[in-house]
């Protein structure tokens, strides 16, 4: 969490935490993983939307609004609280597409799609994944060809979060090596979503197949023919949301494992009294604090559209994601056998972290992105 929150932000964070505690504690997450076909409850998602979960990156003129005037700094509070509780729901994809519509969309596009996203009634997702290195320039993409004033698109984009419930896709496709951004209704002929199995308990992913899909010129996001800058901006936003979620998770797991170490005795003394374990907790504390620090720094830069926004976003992602999963496994080790069981919550956090680590650019991809920013030659 940012240590310098405004009073309003503090209140917003608290309300968010309380709402999640009350409506979707981890036991409910477990329940929904079986009972809810998409891993979350739609009515609950709309309630979250009412709290502001979908409107923070949307300008007031489009019906959105932030708490502090810095929407991304508000949104990472939600993402962090969700990360602490492995909360379900399409927070990242909806916010990324909402930001895209608000920042880049034509007024027609914004008016058409934003109201549903803001109320929680409709769901949208960003389709950039199409194989290793998708986030990098020249990475694998859907292929588009000019067709009169519009385009025809083919290929598969996967894995895509919330593909199974999305009403709208914002898809990246290449036209002769130049990326475009297109808004595609899920009901468009030729668009087929196939289910995938996800390691995450409640966040479902799917593959979106574009079978020679015909798209009108009006679907081009903002009417822009080269979406490179849009992609960078959305990637920065998305990655900051992931980082907030991962750092919330780490801080939470550190907290409850530490408590456990105080409570559990071995050889007549609490685990917390053994130096070998204390030293590992000290290292975990460093990782937790560094993760929070780099997330907040990245969020500030991306929010301000600073010149180093992409570098700092990728720094945070590469730093946190490189170690988050092994850190979590060390908490399993510190917890002992019970930490390896279905009933213990640790695996829910690990499942989430494995997903966040790999998607929207692996740590190696983000290091490559930084190398490119530093001017170190092409990928």
């Amino acid at each position, binding site marked *: 969490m940012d240590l310098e929150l405004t009073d309003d932000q503090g209140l917003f964070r608290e309300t968010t935490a309380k709402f999640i505690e009350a409506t979707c504690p981890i036991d409910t997450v477990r329940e929904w993983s079986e009972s809810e076909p998409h891993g979350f409850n739609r009515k609950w998602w709309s309630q979250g939307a009412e709290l502001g979960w979908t409107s923070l990156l949307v300008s007031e003129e489009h019906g959105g609004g932030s708490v502090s005037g810095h929407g991304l700094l508000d949104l990472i509070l939600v993402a962090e609280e969700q990360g602490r509780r492995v909360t379900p729901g399409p927070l990242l994809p909806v916010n990324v597409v909402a930001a895209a519509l608000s920042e880049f969309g034509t007024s027609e596009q914004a008016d058409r799609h934003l109201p549903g996203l803001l109320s929680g009634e409709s769901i949208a997702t960003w389709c950039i994944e199409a194989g290793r290195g998708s986030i990098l320039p020249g990475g694998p993409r859907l292929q588009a060809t000019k067709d009169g004033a519009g385009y025809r698109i083919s290929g598969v984009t996967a894995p895509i979060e919330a593909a199974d419930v999305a009403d709208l896709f914002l898809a990246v496709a290449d036209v002769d090596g130049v990326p475009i951004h297109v808004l595609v209704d899920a009901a468009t002929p030729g668009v087929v979503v196939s289910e995938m199995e996800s390691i995450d308990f409640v966040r479902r992913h799917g593959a979106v197949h574009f079978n020679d899909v015909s798209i009108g010129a009006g679907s081009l996001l903002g009417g822009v023919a080269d979406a490179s800058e849009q992609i960078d901006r959305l990637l920065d936003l998305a990655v900051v949301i992931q980082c907030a979620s991962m750092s919330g998770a780490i801080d939470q797991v550190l907290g409850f494992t530490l408590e456990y170490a105080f409570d559990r005795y071995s050889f007549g003394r609490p685990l917390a009294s053994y130096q070998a374990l204390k030293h590992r907790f000290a290292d975990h504390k460093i990782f937790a604090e560094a993760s929070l*620090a780099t997330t907040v720094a990245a969020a500030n830069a991306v929010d301000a559209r600073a010149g180093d926004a992409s570098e700092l976003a990728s720094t945070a992602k590469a730093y946190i994601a490189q170690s988050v999963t092994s850190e979590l496994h060390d908490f399993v080790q510190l917890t002992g056998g019970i930490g390896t069981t279905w009933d213990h919550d640790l695996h829910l956090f690990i499942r989430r972290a494995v997903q966040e680590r790999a998607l929207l650019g692996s740590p190696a991809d983000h290091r490559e992105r930084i190398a490119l920013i530093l001017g170190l030659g092409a990928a």
Partner: protein
Amino acid sequence: MSTESTTDAAEDVESFRLRARAWLAENMPRIEGKSNADIAREDENGVYARKLQKILFDGGFAGLCFPVEYGGQGLSLAHQRAFTEESGPYQMPTVLNIPSLSILGATLLDFGTEAQKKRHLPKLISGEEIWVQFLSEPSGGSDLAGLVTKATRDGDIFHLNGSKIWSSGAFRADYALVLARTNPEVPKHSGITVFILKIHQPGVEIQQIKMATGANEFCQEFFDDVPIPIEDVLGKIDDGWTVASRLLFHERDAMGGGSPYLSGQGQRGHGTSNRSDLIELAESNGTLGDPAIRQLIAEAKINETVGEQLTARTATAIKQGLVPGTAGSIPRLYSAMTSERRQEINLEILGTAAPVWEPGAPSRQKSLDYLMRQGGSLGGGSNEMQRNIISERVLLMPREYAADKDKPFNEVLHNQTPTRPR
């Protein structure tokens, strides 16, 4: 305990920055390819560092965060950061940052009497005096309060006997803060006093120690009945642990990069260096196009950036009272661990130039630096000590069993100080 005071009509940071930029261009020599560490290495006796510091002092750009009444400029940390950023292309006496200004100057400011501060701080800030710390002893460094060097009181004079070791750069320094046992009949923390010691005087013998790299930076000192007048006691007699704890706080703050008294780039102890040196290294051995090497360069950059962010976050948390001051061990340990990693990255990028090089090759120093990989993880309190502090003081985990707890020091088992070699 205020370590920062600000002048009434403090100049805003941006106009200060512009003024500093113009002044630097006018007055400071350019760095011309060498790093400040290279320059310091060639200036073994610190003569050149003193000269640079004097130029800064005369220009009103030394001791920016020290109070005006003691020779500083009374400016804020933001001003200091701006100055450091602007100083990048210029030669800076960064060797004076640690320990002279940011550890010893800072501690003197906290505990000195008015007379002590007036006498020494302006000279410290102008580079006329260089200070070092005499803490560690041959009998042990981690258990600092278990020190055995003693100072015996005789009226208004104390007599110092014993030995200190690992004091970096003592041979080129003028004064040291020395910790000595003044009462062995009470538990260890209660019988220590801190003294301001003039280094070059009869009874003080300094031996340089040859390090693994071949450099002679470290010293061992032997004290043979060295007289110290009572006015040179810093803080209260037998209450030196209070002073030492604060000194160690300043040390963590400096080593973690958070201290307001650090000026100039590349000053944070070991391993950190300016951004482009890895890129230059890879360029010089033709590996810049190698994707594996690019990954390592990016990783080094990431570790450095996150370190700055962590330092800033911890400073804010301490200022807001969310964590105790000992949380300074968090960035301190982070920087030691990433410095170890950085040394491994250097080795990887050096490739075959790590073990073998053409005579005089510029990469030579990087190879030799690798031999001191653990320096940053021992100096200023070992990583294990930092982990003890973080777990016990920040996470409030149970303290380690201490065999010496509450025992008079003269009943505690400890190593002995070696006698002076003949």
